């Protein structure tokens, strides 16, 4: 089962799902539940999910597997982004940065 976050909300895809094409949110976490194995978790920033013929493809501009996330660096990025949000409420770049950093931390299994 694949769980992803589209702009409409969370979507869970089981085998034999009807064909879907969805837009993923910035800073989302994608989870693939596998039988008898640990979940595959990835931080996915933007992009699409397409389901057709029992095949799920995720097209992302930037994606990172949870196991490959540098937790310290992500935390650092989050702190920096939050600092610049506090300094300037309108900072859209920093807001996206913060979202991305949070997604990376969540993918790595950290609490945010």
């Amino acid at each position, binding site marked *: 089962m694949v769980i992803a976050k589209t702009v409409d909300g969370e979507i869970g895809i089981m085998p034999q799902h009807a064909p*879907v094409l969805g837009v993923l949110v910035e800073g989302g976490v994608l989870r693939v539940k596998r039988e008898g194995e640990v979940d595959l978790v990835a931080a996915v920033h933007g992009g699409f999910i*397409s389901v057709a013929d029992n095949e799920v493809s995720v097209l992302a501009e930037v994606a990172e597997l949870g196991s490959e996330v540098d937790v310290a660096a992500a935390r650092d990025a989050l702190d920096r982004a939050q600092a610049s949000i506090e300094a300037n409420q309108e900072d859209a770049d920093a807001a996206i940065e913060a979202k991305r950093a949070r997604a990376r931390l969540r993918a790595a299994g950290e609490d945010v």
Partner: protein
Amino acid sequence: MGAQLRLLRRRISSVKSTAKITRAQELIASSRIVRAQQRMQAALPYEREITRAVTGVVSNAASVDHPLTVAKDNPAKAGVLIVTSDSGFCGGFNANVLREAEALRGLLESRGLEVIPFVSGRKGVTWHSFRNRTMGGEWVGFSRKPAYADAKEIAGVLIDSFKDENGIDEIHIVSTEFVSMLTQNVVVKRVLPLEVEETEATESTQIPPYFEFEPTAGDVLESLLPRYVESRIFTALLQSAASEEAARRRAMKSATDNANELMRVLTQQMNQARQAEITQEISEIVGGANALADAAAGKE
């Protein structure tokens, strides 16, 4: 005679050092092709999937009228992205691309369109600025190793101009397609507006008859199409990078071969000259000795 010999020696040594340079360039290019090919391969799945997704949306939601899919009634301007290389030493690589771009320009102008070139690669940029052609955009510095961010930047400029009322109405790409180490073809592709192709549906490429969209088909298309254009441009850049190295390898190989052939001919000439010099010296000595002997015989 001595002067000719010295001249030949000097030419041989200069040809030899040129051959060393071209040989090194050839080897560098060969190793770079492999890496460029790997980058090309790595980008393939993404491009395939995104093309599939775009095909899915467009063939499922014929009712979606998106500015990026609909051809304008009377197009006035066409943008042509010309992908060339930054450095030379690659034979006819850039000349081929630019010739094809000129042909496309003629074709578009005969349809009454104004052509605006967007040029990537230093060679193409200098070619255009030398002829005082105004460019819609120019990018240099990454022809050997293009990154996705480079493609994104180019796509951003093209799409902005495409969306603009007074901007371009069509986007074409002229680039070199990498078929194999020995074959690279210049190709012209229209990226936007999308071309509707009637293709035989095969088992693997078949698009399911219905698709659900999250949130709506229009929204999906809105964010999908720019990615699609980026991906197409990225592929063109990568293919062009691999082709550039392949063209360079071939050009440098024939340069090395030529230098070796020249060296062979010159060495032969040099040996001939040296031999002629020696023969002359011997005959001078023999002649001199004979003259002396004759003179001595006369005295006695």
